[in-house]
């Protein structure tokens, strides 16, 4: 095998530009695969971090009566949990309500949260800092759709536990910027104590956000939803993107591999006399097959080297400056930052290199098998068609 690589290397170096053209095409496919995978991995990582920081924490302990996908479960989807069991948990109470910005009516979710919480990045301390009667914080998407800003007063209406409507003026104490749309659009955040007070839902909680010290135990009437479960929709979307992206990889890889396959087929046809000479000089047919296969496989090694030469600076630059998409994914209901930073893991790079080498070797072996059936006399005459 050493001989095959030695000879293959000499042959490829001797072939000059043809070798580097093939290696160039393959290296392009190789770099694009790493880039797109890196971009999706970067998105995945960013979405996961932002999701954890802003919404999911280290999981949710959810009241069994509450179903995030059933609006009718909001009214009664809450319960009480004994104080000792609330250690390392931040309570959130959700109720439906209406906001009347500039006289318009907007259906919203009113979310009550402990202003002193540190688990989520929501700037809930603003709720403590404000002197307003009912301070609220909202996300920038909500601020934009309601056309309200910090310091604005807005009429808030809600229904208490007995079904009685009440309303008062709430004051916008803060507007936060987040990539997580699920805590922003169509909702306002206020102190949970205040929400419990105005809805007469004392000590009631819809779900708790766990911090990293929380130890999961079975709690009657509540279910624990871990990070993986909470992020399942986002994960599904990212996986779907990966599948979509793989079509592009297949097309690019096919182009690169087709170039190698074509070169190999042409080589075997054009280099018949050479093949015959190798056999006449004492190589076995399978040694020649191995040499041609090694030549094809070596294209991918050259592609890796070439790709590293121009790819590392490009990929490094893109991963440090990020790529702006002009808009974030909030409008589409997904966690996606306006600027994404590709992440290139060692697994991704090694996996792609191995994939390219393996595929190139296979497509080289397929035409090279023909050599094993060649008649050396015909090969020496260059008469095989």
């Amino acid at each position, binding site marked *: 095998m050493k*001989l095959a690589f*030695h*000879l293959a290397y*000499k*042959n490829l*170096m*001797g*072939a000059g530009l043809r070798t580097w053209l093939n290696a160039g095409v393959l290296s392009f496919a190789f770099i694009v695969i790493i880039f797109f995978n890196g971009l999706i991995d970067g998105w995945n990582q960013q979405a996961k971090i932002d999701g954890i920081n802003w919404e999911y924490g280290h999981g949710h302990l959810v009241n069994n009566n509450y179903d995030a996908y059933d609006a009718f479960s909001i009214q009664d989807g809450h319960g009480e949990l004994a104080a000792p069991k609330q250690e390392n948990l931040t309570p959130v109470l959700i109720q439906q309500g209406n906001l009347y910005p500039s006289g318009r009516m907007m259906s919203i979710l009113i979310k009550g949260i402990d202003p002193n919480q540190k688990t989520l990045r929501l700037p809930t301390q603003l709720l403590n800092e404000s002197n307003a009667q009912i301070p609220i914080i909202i996300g920038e998407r909500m601020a934009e759709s309601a056309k309200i800003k910090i310091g604005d007063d807005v009429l808030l209406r809600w229904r208490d536990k007995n079904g009685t409507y009440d309303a008062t003026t709430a004051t916008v104490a803060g507007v936060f910027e987040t990539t997580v749309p699920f805590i922003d659009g169509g909702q306002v955040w206020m102190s949970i104590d205040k929400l419990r007070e105005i809805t007469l839902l004392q000590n009631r909680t819809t779900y708790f956000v766990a911090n990293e010290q929380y130890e999961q135990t079975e709690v009657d009437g509540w279910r624990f939803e871990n990070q993986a479960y909470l992020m399942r929709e986002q994960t599904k979307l990212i996986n779907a993107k990966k599948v979509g992206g793989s079509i592009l990889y297949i097309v690019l890889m096919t182009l690169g591999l087709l170039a190698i396959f074509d070169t190999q087929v042409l080589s075997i046809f054009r280099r018949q*006399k*050479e093949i*015959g*000479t190798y*056999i*006449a*000089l*004492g*190589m*076995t*047919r*399978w*040694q020649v097959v191995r040499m041609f296969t090694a030549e094809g496989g070596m294209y991918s090694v050259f592609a890796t080297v070439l790709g590293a030469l121009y790819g590392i600076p490009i990929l490094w630059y893109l991963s440090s400056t990020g790529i702006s998409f002009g808009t974030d994914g909030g409008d589409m209901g997904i966690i996606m930052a306006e600027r994404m930073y590709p992440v290139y893991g060692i697994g991704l790079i090694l996996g792609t290199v191995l994939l390219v080498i393996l595929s190139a070797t296979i497509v080289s072996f397929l035409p090279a098998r023909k050599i094993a059936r060649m*008649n*050396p*006399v015909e090969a*020496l005459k260059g008469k095989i068609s």
Partner: protein
Amino acid sequence: MSEKIIVLENLVKRFPVGDGEFTALNDINLTFEKGEFSGVVGPSGSGKTTLLNIIGSLDSPSEGTATVMGKQISSLSHKEAAQLRNKHLGFIFQVYNLLPVYTVFENVEFALILQKRSAAERKKEVMQALEWVGLENMANKKPSKLSGGEGQRVAIARAMVKRPALVLADEPTANLDAKNAHAILKMMKKLNEELNTTFLFSTHDEKVMAYMNRLIHLEDGKVVKDELMKAKTI
């Protein structure tokens, strides 16, 4: 008693042509001994190259036996035939068949790489072989930079570097002018005498025939004359 290098007995070679067969060699019985400088002569299509290909284990007989260096060609596996060619046979072709991407040195070195000889040993042997053919100063040139005569000298060095027992030369001077042809033949004759290597030529060139000690005339695949000659001396 001289050592028999090649023994051909009742050798027949047929090739399929359309629905029928073409007999390229018909009942050949020949023996070649070590150190011979012989030629198989005859017009095109008489079976010269086919005979050399069978002796060189590149092809196998349809009937009869061809025994080269004690090995019966038709019973050899691909691997055994490759070993026979690698260890004991040298080939010189009409169009030189040099490997284009290798330098002169690397072309000559190739056979020794296949024999897994050490780099130091290879260098010594290759330089000696290039010295035999007078190309020691062209070791780093590519075949495309050589003249026809130089190319064929490299081919001779490549065939001789492993010091084979038998060299098969198929029309080695067909692409050379008279001056180069004589130079090449003298060189081979010298190597034949100095190293006692057996040379078997296929040719229809009278310049080549003049150097032979023995001429086997083939016509339509049959030996019509087998004569010992008074060869031209160098």
